[in-house]
């Protein structure tokens, strides 16, 4: 996926641990760090209805994602900017990471669910057991 390679290049170019790296990569590092922290990570805005749809999709499948409401997060602005850059300029949320890997916005999530790749990814990340 284009998203994945983009995030990986960011990852490799910025220093780990967030110390001394250039400012623009910090939010991205934050994002990546948060994304790697759980099996399923959703960046959301509490009032966003499409984010609500993504959350309902996962809970309907029996998955409990870790949700970061960036409108309620102190680092929200930066995260939003990083996500916008990651997704290529459309809306920043919702964005889904599974097993630390970027899946994408709602359309990518649904496409991967329809073509049957979402469930294996979830199982691989340990978010789904059956």
């Amino acid at each position, binding site marked *: 996926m284009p998203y994945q390679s983009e995030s990986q290049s960011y990852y490799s170019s910025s220093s780990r641990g967030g110390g001394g790296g250039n400012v623009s990569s910090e939010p991205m590092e934050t994002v990546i760090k948060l994304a790697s922290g759980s099996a399923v990570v959703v960046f959301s805005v509490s*009032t*966003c*209805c*499409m*984010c*609500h*749809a*993504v959350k*309902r*999709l996962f809970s*309907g*499948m029996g998955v409990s994602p870790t949700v970061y409401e960036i409108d309620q997060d102190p680092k929200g602005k930066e995260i939003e900017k990083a996500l916008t850059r990651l997704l290529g300029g459309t*809306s920043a949320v919702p964005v889904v990471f599974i097993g630390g890997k970027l899946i994408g916005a*709602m*359309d990518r999530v*649904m*496409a991967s*669910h*329809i*073509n*049957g790749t*979402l469930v294996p990814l979830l199982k691989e990340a340990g978010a789904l057991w059956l």
Partner: protein
Amino acid sequence: MASTRRVLGEPAALSGISHHLPYSNPHMLHNHPPDTSFGRNQEESSFDFGELEEPIVLGGVKINKNKTKETLYSSVKASAILEMLPSWPIPRQRESSKSGEESTDSGSALIKPDSESPISTKAPSDHHKTARAAAEDDSDREHDDLQPPQPPLQSPDIQMESARTGVSQSKSAAKQTTEKTLRRLAQNREAARKSRLRKKAYVQQLESSRMRLSQLEQDIQSARSQGLFIGGRATTGNISSAGAVFDMEYSRWLDEDIGHMSELRAAVQSHLSDGDLRAIVDGYVSHYDEIFRLKGVAAKSDVFHLITGTWVTPVERCYLWMGGFRPSELIKMLIPQLDPLTEQQLLGICGLQQSSQQAEDALAQGLDQLHQSLLQTIANSSLNDSMHHMVIALGKLANLEGFVRQADNLRQQTLHQLRRILTVRQAARCFLVMGEYYGRLRALSSLWASRPRE
């Protein structure tokens, strides 16, 4: 009389026996329309004189009212038939020439190609026994098997009956069984005749509906080409320019769909090679990709036009979901029509149905939250900052486009996954079924709109 026949209503195991006069009663004459499809009947194994009842009666066959009507009809029928239609070919030749000697039973009658010898219509040997008209036994087999005891016929009006007076009446027991057999045969014939008539009526109804349907489609086509209709409806002033543009593009897409359908149909029937078929099938997938693209463009300008669904026909509008068809419903409709499927394919398709259902539910819940949030914003606005809230509401409304776009995305992904799971040939049949299904929904709308109203 009717009751006795009912008792012997066995399945038409013997209905293959042809050439018999079916039991007729006066009521039945009025029930069935004059049937001129003699030729067709002759192809059937059971040659039924039933259809001739009305013409015979109308032809003024004299009937002795003294007898039970059934017996009269049956007894007169055979002779009358030949008299009326002497050139009418009889599918099965009767071997026996003499009615009296051939008659195997009181109920059987022989029909000879030549009308010279009287038709040995067998009036019931015992009038009281055979209350109903004896069916004519047209099987030579039967004739051979049955003993022909002929009790004196009690209807002097009928010529044949007198011919049989000489037959012995000794084997009454055998006669009874033959009578039962004949009754059964008659019942079978009657049932067969009725079902044939029903089938004919049904087929005629189908044919007329089909013709009417094609006529309607032609009318719509011509009206559309004359620019009277945009998107299948007369234009009003309420369609935005983006909506009008989309409607035109959609009607063009529908025309192309008809072309794709005929191409698919011809390809499936003519057993093209897989390579050629693949091109056609993939072309149909691209055809759908095109409409999703057009809808995406239209959603940017006028999402409400897509949601309210004026661009589809009324029946389709009933089933509209987020501006289009519901993928899980489509899969559910397709599954039984996709046989045969491998185990793996079936699993894949059921998985597709389940995942599309889950995605639909998620989108529906998101949209529902949008509705609630929007209503709250509108309701909460006080006099002072109502404008502010309206602006917020406008912002929320903008999310509608995202939902319609995700719904179309879901539809597109479902079609693509369907294409991936199925073989080329299966996919061709699948898309044919799908196209015809939506075509029928559209046709239903046309028929409904043009139904006669008091």
